[in-house]
Structure formats: C-alpha cells, structure tokens
C-alpha cells in the first residue's frame, strides 16, 4: 500500500463507479474451484480467481517430522505457501521469503481452528499451497483452496474457511482488489471467515483507513466470504455426488 498516485492520472474508479476491470465496488472477480485434482495427494483443490491460479495439496495426517515438533495430544497443521518464480512479472527468487513465511504461519493458524486436530495425535497434516499465477489476493485464494483440499482429503473439520480481501482505492472501500488496485490502492484487509459460526480466523490490514471505513470493509469481506463458501461447497458436491444413473436412475441406497 504505497498510496502511490497512478501514472498519468488514471483513475481506479471511473465516473460511473466502475473499476479498471469493469467491476462494481462490491463485486468479486470470477471464482472457480475444482476439488480432488491431484493423484498423489490425499486431498487437493485447484482454484482460479480472476487471473490467480492456485493449487493446494494436502498430505496426511502422517507421522510428524521432525519428531520434536510432535504433539502427543493433537495433529499439527503445517501450511507451506509458495509462489512460483514465474507467477509474477519480475521473476521471484525461488524458496521461502519472509512474506511467504508469514503467510504460511497465519494460514496454518486459520486452518488449525477448523480441523479436529485432537483426532490425530502426534501427526502432521501438511498443506502445500502453490501460487502458479499471481494477481493480488493470493493469500485469500490459497486459504480458500486449502480448506477445500482438506475436506477433499477426508479430514474431519468443523467447517470450511472462506477467505477474501476488502480494500480502499480512490478513497472508496471496495471488494477483492485486483493487481493495479493492490499496487496503487490505499489499504488492504484480507479476511478468513467461517460463515456457520460467524468467526474470523484470519485478519490482517495495511494502509490507511478510518475506523468507519474498516467496519465497512470488514462487513464487505464477510459478505463475500459467504458467497465464496457456496462455491467451495459446490466444488466438493460436484466431486462427491454420484453421477445420475450409475446405480440405476434415482436408485435409493439402503
């Protein structure tokens, strides 16, 4: 959030209230999720959210290494967020940097809240998030995909976590910042939310917001998470619904 003015006076919101990509202030970019796309992983999900392309894979519960990290009472949810070197315009140096370490930490914490970790003592549940193409909002995309992958792995969970960011551009609070909006905007608020319990499990903010603008942005992000949650559920339903006719049309299972 540099708050840097846009080059040659381009506006992020035009006189009709439309954003650079034609969206309204409270409009999400198109979101597609597919569950169970990888063969090796115990669970997986692939997500496309605007230009973002994110893969999430879950391995485990499996024996926790190194041993001293084991918890005899519960599983450890370890998330590894990584951006591919080719996912951004200027090549990113491969390997974990400080930003991705922080994202891995807060994503692990958000997911730990929904997994019944006490069912799998001494184990590790490893969640790998690979950002293949990045265009703002990758931590939210990663968390959204990771919860679907955990469910796909059959890991008992309280609920899915849905995640979305709100932000501020041209002094207006908007939903789901795009790349230019992220670069030239005034604030960003990534939120991870559990609709069923009205709980916030991930929250960050940077930039400049009045208390009222924050409240508006938080509510906007929460409402969007409720929509994203439906897309997540739909992805799982599509994977796990029996195709009609396989056991006889409309056959009932006793």
């Amino acid at each position, binding site marked *: 959030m540099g708050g840097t003015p846009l080059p040659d006076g381009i506006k992020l919101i035009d006189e009709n209230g439309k954003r650079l990509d034609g969206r309204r202030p409270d409009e999400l970019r198109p979101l597609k999720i597919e569950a169970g796309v990888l063969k090796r992983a115990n669970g997986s999900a692939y997500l496309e959210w605007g230009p973002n392309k994110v893969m999430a894979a879950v391995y485990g519960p499996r024996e926790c290494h190194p041993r001293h990290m084991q918890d005899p009472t519960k599983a450890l949810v370890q998330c590894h967020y990584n951006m591919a070197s080719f996912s951004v315009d200027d090549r990113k140096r491969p390997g974990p940097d*400080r930003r991705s370490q*922080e994202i891995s930490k807060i994503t692990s*914490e958000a997911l730990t809240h929904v997994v019944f970790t006490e069912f799998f003592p001494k184990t590790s549940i490893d969640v790998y998030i690979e950002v293949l193409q990045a265009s703002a909002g990758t931590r939210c995309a990663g968390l959204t995909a990771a919860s679907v992958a955990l469910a796909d792995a059959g890991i008992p969970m309280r609920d899915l976590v849905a995640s979305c960011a709100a932000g501020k551009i041209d002094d207006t609070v908007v939903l789901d910042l795009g790349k230019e909006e992220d670069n030239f905007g005034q604030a960003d608020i990534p939120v991870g939310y*559990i609709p069923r319990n009205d*709980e916030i499990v991930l929250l960050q903010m940077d930039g400049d917001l*009045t*208390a009222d603008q924050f409240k508006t942005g*938080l509510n906007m992000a929460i409402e969007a998470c409720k929509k994203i949650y439906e897309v997540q559920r739909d992805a799982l339903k599509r994977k796990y619904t029996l195709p009609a006719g396989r056991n006889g049309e409309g056959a009932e299972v006793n």
Partner: protein
Amino acid sequence: MAKSVMADLKRDHITKLLSKGMRIDGRKFDEPRPLTVEKDFVQSAEGSARVHLGDTYVVVGVKLMVGQPFADTPNKGVLTTNAELKPLASEAFESGPPDQRSIEVARVIDRGIREGKAVDMEKLCIEPEKEVWIMFVDVHAIDYDGNLFDAGNIAAMAALKSAVVPAKRANKGEDYPLPVSHVPISVTAVKIGEHILVDPTYDEEIVADARLTVTTNEKGDLCAMQKGGSGSFRPEEVLRVVELSRKIGADIRSKI
C-alpha cells in the same frame, strides 16, 4: 510434552480468575502494563531506545547506511525491520536463523512504521535512482514476558524519534534529525475463552486462543492489523479491539 500440561494448569488458573473479573497480575482487562521508555540508550546506533513494558524488556537500535534505492521507489529511502528473539530473552526462543515467530513480529512492526508513514522516506533520498539512506530497525528481545509486538513497536518508534541521519560521516552534508512525521502505535489484545485482554503477559499469551494487533495513528485512523493464533474473533470483538487500540494508543503515544 510437559509444556502442554503446564499450559493446561495455567489456563485453568487464569480462566478461573478471569471469570471473577481478575487477571493474574491484578490488572483490568483493558489496562496495559507500566511503560518506561529511555531514548539514546546505545551511542553506537544512529537512534535507539530501551523499553520496559511490565517485565518485557526490548532494545531497538536504528542504523543508517548509504545504499541504492529500489527501482520502483527511486526517490525514497529503504526501511528494513528485523527482530532478534534469542535464547537470552527466554527459554521459549531458540538460536538459529529467524523462525516464523520472529519474522511475524518484525513484519508487523515494519507494517506499522511503513503503512503509518512514520518516516518521510523522500527526505532520505540523496540522489534519485543512485543513492538513498537505508534504514535498519533492529528489535532485540532482552527479557520476554509477552507482547513483543507492542514493546517492539514502542521501542522502534522511540528509537526513530531519537535518530540522527549521519550525513557528515558519509560525506553527504550536515547531519539532520531523522524526519519522523507520524507515530503509529500498536496495541495487542488476546482472547482467552470469551475474554479480551490488552497487553498480554507471557502466561496469558501461551494460554490465549487468539491474538489481535491493531496499529493506529494520531488521527485515530488504522494503518496495520494482524490476527494470530489458532482461535477466532467475532466481528464485534474485532471492532472492540480497534476501539481499545485507538484509546490506549493515544496514551502510549504521549509517553514517547
């Protein structure tokens, strides 16, 4: 792990007290610990401060060096924030390269300084695209009794306010005070059960379900925020911590 047994016992004790409206050290829920700030503690640094927040003790040193600007900000200085959480300060810390915890502490403090526009970075430009001042803010935990986020933020802001740009030494003209234009202050609260506690001690931190740091400026506007821990906050609890941060932040700001 013996740690989790101890944590369970502590948790019982702490929650029992909380249900009676008390904290282990007798503070109110919205009461931060006593704060002392001492600037210019280290003479070899361009700016420094040592801060006691209750029994948490941190030293921050600011060093300035001439270097190259980033290509996308050719006329601005560079800010680098680092946190050293070493075994000196607590048995909870291990030696070695920065782990996720110290990276998070450093990045949350950094975000407050950066997004709160604490330092006028354009005044740290010597020659656009060629030479700018690189500002290193190093946060050292000396004694750890919880809430390094706020102790570190307070010490960093005090150190920045005391810092002088060593222009003469680098043959770049006369020395001048570091241009600090805003003082963003972070206030951290934890949630234990249904209770929200400001400025947690170590014991409160290890039994807490979740943590929320909110950084505000002198106008009461928000510049940074970070939730941590595997618990959750309800939306109305987040807004309450925001209000607490604005109120307590103003108090702290007047002391540095």
